[in-house]
């Protein structure tokens, strides 16, 4: 018997047959697959090297950046509604932001990212003001759970979008049209003024040409020429425009402050919470606005955050840890920046953090001290590790 056989084996009936079979297999020699990591890259590349091909001015406040893979290869497939995390340098700081892909999953020679100016927003303004065709960018691969799942979403859906929240809706509509899907979609799209409506012409054209696509614009600040619907988008208006909701999956994407209100409106119409899906695209209530924030702790006051093996920084309590780390040149992995994807997970070795409502932590994370640093705020001096 071979040297690797335990002496106990000899005592078993049939041991010789087993050894013979092992030897036969050894002689035939199986080749084991290559490294699992390499094999998976076409599906889930870690980094995409992108070049801006075109910049389209959608409205006064919004531009669409069409990006292609710098090496000309097709981009990885994605599901309409997913996003990529764009890595950007603003001044000295390297940071990232998530942008839903607004283009069609049928065309993989480009992704469109539709960016609206956010008042005071560092990255949106930077992109709109400085990025031009030919510029190079990098990003993570497509990611996110805000997409139509045929398993249980059904083929009659409603989408409530606000502002740039129309980006994933546009991708879903293009998906339906380009792939000839048998799915009905009703979009209720809220904008402040008529000239803020992104994709206005295309949406209206698609709605005219495709029976299954319905688009209603809802304006909150109508000018004298506006003849369409006027907000607020409340239960009554949703019900009048979308019709009965029973059984229809309802997607929400827009300014984070609106979600709680819209969910209440939908629920007041008898729509169950499980048929409502939100794209968590930022934090609704940063401290100290969150009522759970400990009143005695001043969010402006600084605490010391020590990163194992990489030094210490002084950080105001009210600043998300991820941003504070990036300000200081440290870059934990991150993608959604809204508490959901867990890529920014860090271990809290000592001290206490406050998590925004949006943090999708696991039960054991609280017990064993893991934090999602994009939505975690240092309440006390901290030591973290990542």
């Amino acid at each position, binding site marked *: 018997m071979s040297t*690797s056989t335990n002496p106990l084996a000899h005592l078993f009936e049939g041991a010789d047959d087993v050894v013979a079979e092992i030897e036969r297999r050894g002689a035939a020699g199986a080749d084991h697959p290559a490294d699992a990591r390499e094999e*998976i890259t076409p599906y889930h590349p870690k980094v995409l090297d992108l070049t801006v091909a075109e910049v389209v001015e959608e409205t006064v406040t919004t531009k669409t950046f069409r990006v292609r893979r710098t090496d000309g290869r097709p981009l990885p497939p994605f599901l309409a509604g997913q996003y990529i995390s764009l890595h950007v340098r603003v001044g000295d700081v390297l940071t990232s932001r998530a942008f839903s892909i607004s283009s069609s999953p049928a065309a993989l020679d480009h992704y469109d990212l539709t960016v609206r100016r956010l008042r005071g927003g560092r990255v949106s303004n930077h992109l709109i003001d400085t990025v031009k065709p030919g510029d190079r960018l990098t990003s993570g691969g497509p990611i996110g759970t805000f997409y139509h799942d045929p398993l249980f979403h059904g083929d009659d859906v409603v989408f409530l979008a606000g502002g740039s929240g129309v980006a994933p809706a546009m991708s879903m509509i293009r998906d339906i049209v380009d792939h000839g899907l048998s799915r009905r979609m009703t979009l209720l799209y809220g904008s402040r003024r008529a000239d803020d409506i992104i994709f206005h012409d295309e949406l209206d054209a698609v709605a005219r040409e495709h029976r299954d696509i319905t688009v209603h614009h809802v304006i909150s600040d109508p000018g004298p020429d506006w003849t369409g619907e006027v907000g607020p988008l409340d239960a009554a208006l949703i019900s009048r425009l979308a019709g009965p909701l029973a059984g229809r999956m309802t997607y929400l994407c827009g300014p984070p402050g609106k979600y709680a209100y819209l969910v209440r409106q939908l629920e007041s119409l008898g729509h169950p919470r499980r048929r409502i899906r939100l794209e968590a695209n930022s934090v609704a209530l940063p401290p100290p606005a969150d009522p759970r924030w400990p009143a005695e702790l001043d969010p402006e006051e600084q605490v010391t955050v020590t990163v194992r093996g990489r030094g210490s920084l002084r950080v105001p309590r009210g600043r998300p840890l991820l941003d504070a780390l990036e300000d200081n040149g440290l870059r934990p992995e991150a993608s959604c920046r809204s508490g959901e994807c867990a890529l920014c997970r860090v271990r809290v070795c000592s001290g206490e953090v406050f998590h925004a409502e949006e943090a999708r932590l696991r039960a054991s994370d609280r017990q064993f001290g893991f934090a999602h640093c994009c939505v975690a705020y240092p309440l006390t001096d901290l030591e973290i590790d990542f």
Partner: protein
Amino acid sequence: MSVDYDVIVIGAGNAGLSAAATLQRGGKRTLLVERHNVPGGAATSFVRGRFEFEVSLHQLGGMGGPGPLREILDEMDVTRRLRLIQDDELYRTVVPGVLDVTLPADWQGAVDVLDSHYPGNRAALTRFLEIVRDVGLWQLTARANLHRLKEQVEWLSGLSDVRRYGLRTYREVLDEFFTDERLKFVLSSYWSYNGQLPSRMSFMDMARLLALFIETKPYQIVGGSQALSSAMLESFLEAGGEVRFNTSVEKIVTRGGRAVGVRVDGGETVSCRLVVSNAPSSTTYTRLLDPADVPSGVLRDLGSRRMGPSATALYLGLDAPAAELGFATATNFLTTDLDERTVARGMRSLEPAPFLLASCYDVRPTGFAPPGASQVNLVTIQYADPWEAVPVRDYQQAKSAYAASLLDLLKAIAPGVRDVIEEAEIATPLTFKRYLSQPGGAIYGFDQDAMDSWLFHEDDLKPNVPGLVLVSNWVTAGGYNSTIVTAARLCRRLLAVL
């Protein structure tokens, strides 16, 4: 010669954590390096909406009474950090229109239930389960005492049933005792915990599984397997161990044929006296090491082994209580028909799933679903090849179609599930490849037939390359009990010689 650490452990899966905690607590300065940002490997969970999802743990064996895992986790100071829930039943097995049997986790109880469903088999059942118990307990005990070989040889020499039946296939032994295919089928339910169908799995391995779960009872963990892996990490850190997450080992550094450290991504080299690899055997010997440093016998042995199966899983968050949906048992095996070949075909194709294991974590809630809701995992055993053959562009569609077939099969025990889905996530062998870095997405290491038995692969646990040992389900049986216990025992022995 000064080194950075006594030991470097590559990978924080069940086996890596167990090794690291054992060595650090034994006084060795240990660095644990993990590619992901979290400990556990397969022993982890993720969140969607209001639900947390268990990735891999269906039933934890080895925890009841003086179970092997219990002993190791006590010793590792981990048990006190966990809250465990004992399952009421062993499992429920259903073939729609053919059989529906729920077995208790009790030898006599199992005889009673099976005899009531299939009368006339009491004597054969009693004798059969006695052999199962003897063979199973022998294997569990023998593995713990291999260093006392002489004693073991003497003991085994007297166990004629163990010697006679141990290496035969489970199917052969069933055929010797029973004629009713339904009865044999119910007794074969745990095949998926090993990944080999009854006609390929050794009697010894099925006996080990049955004895483990009946003797030491099946358990769930509050907070799921992530609570267990985080608890092992905590014990390791409290003992002074160091961990680096988000760090991948690119190479094991050798000098004069001896492992002396690792090179991590970014190029840094860290030195040590001993490297413990929780990465798969083939990865460790042919990628992390230069094969020139690996004895040819080891490479030949790798060539004789076959890539084990992976799994396809549908994780479901359901907006209804478990009982209302039809889940009275945590562990449910569902198969379309009694013919093993049907399932064998399903493991290599994307035809509608012929088999699934439905685990409901809210028969006794583990805290993963909000009140009034429940979390259910549907898992089937599959090899990676049918999924690898799907063009990248069609992958999503293939996933959805396959998941729909799992839901169709589930209707037999829980017809209302489709109407109350709140969250659903699908993992295929490609997903397991991605998150676990396991070739073929293998969830139990190599194909575990008789040829894979530890009886014929002593070298698996030896330092074939000086300064390096392997711990993982590639060098011991798959599963929580086996990987954690084997790694801890191996490292205890190493403490004596390090």
